[in-house]
């Protein structure tokens, strides 16, 4: 399925299969992984993703339609995982298959930007306090995936 919200592992290989189609010479896939950032509460070891499912699926389907119309994408994947994800796990896979590479890059970029801006999905950081080393203080980094 091209639009998916699931608590199961996302497969990039599966996304590639979903992006096969006659005449689609350029395929671009973006995958986002959970990063071990340092937030206010310490070192992040997991992110809890939640969603408001029905509006989220409708919004994902609308983004897919837009990508097909604006970039001529013949196949689109918009998959997001929900639930608890450990550092290193894949939280999101989006992809577009087009005749040519420029359109595929633009479409994939559009998919992830729109997903992040407009789909009701939230993450909450799960962190462990970090003891600051005395000699080599770490730089604080609080950004999250992608």
């Amino acid at each position, binding site marked *: 399925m091209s639009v998916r919200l699931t608590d199961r592992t996302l497969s990039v290989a599966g996304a590639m299969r979903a992006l096969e189609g006659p005449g689609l010479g350029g395929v671009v896939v973006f995958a986002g992984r959970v990063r071990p950032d340092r937030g206010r509460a310490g070192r992040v070891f997991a992110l809890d993703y*939640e969603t408001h499912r029905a509006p989220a699926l*409708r919004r994902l389907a609308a983004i897919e339609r837009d990508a097909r119309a604006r970039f001529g994408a013949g196949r689109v994947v918009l998959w997001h995982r929900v639930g608890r994800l450990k550092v290193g796990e894949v939280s999101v896979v989006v992809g577009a298959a087009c005749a040519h590479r420029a359109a595929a890059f633009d479409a994939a970029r559009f998919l992830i930007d729109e997903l992040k801006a407009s789909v009701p*999905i939230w993450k909450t950081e799960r962190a462990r306090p970090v003891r600051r080393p005395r000699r080599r203080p770490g730089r604080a980094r609080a950004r999250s995936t992608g």
Partner: protein
Amino acid sequence: MTRRRSRVVILLFASAREALGRRTLDWPVSPDGVRADALVRALARTYPRLGLALRASRFVHNGEYLHDLSTPIRPGDEFAVHPPYGGG
């Protein structure tokens, strides 16, 4: 179901859920309903911890984004509080 018919189901996500420590609220309304802006004000009055999240949020009424805050919210409706999104 009888109980829900005289109430609005409030759905809380992310910072709104964390502020209250729960995902849903059953909010009593009169049979004629209540304007969305009045509902939001009443929520903020009753749960001051929810104030910050409510000010930053969009609202979703029965699955549709609410653009007009004078819309009546009626018994049995679903009213969701959407803090800024953070997918990806």
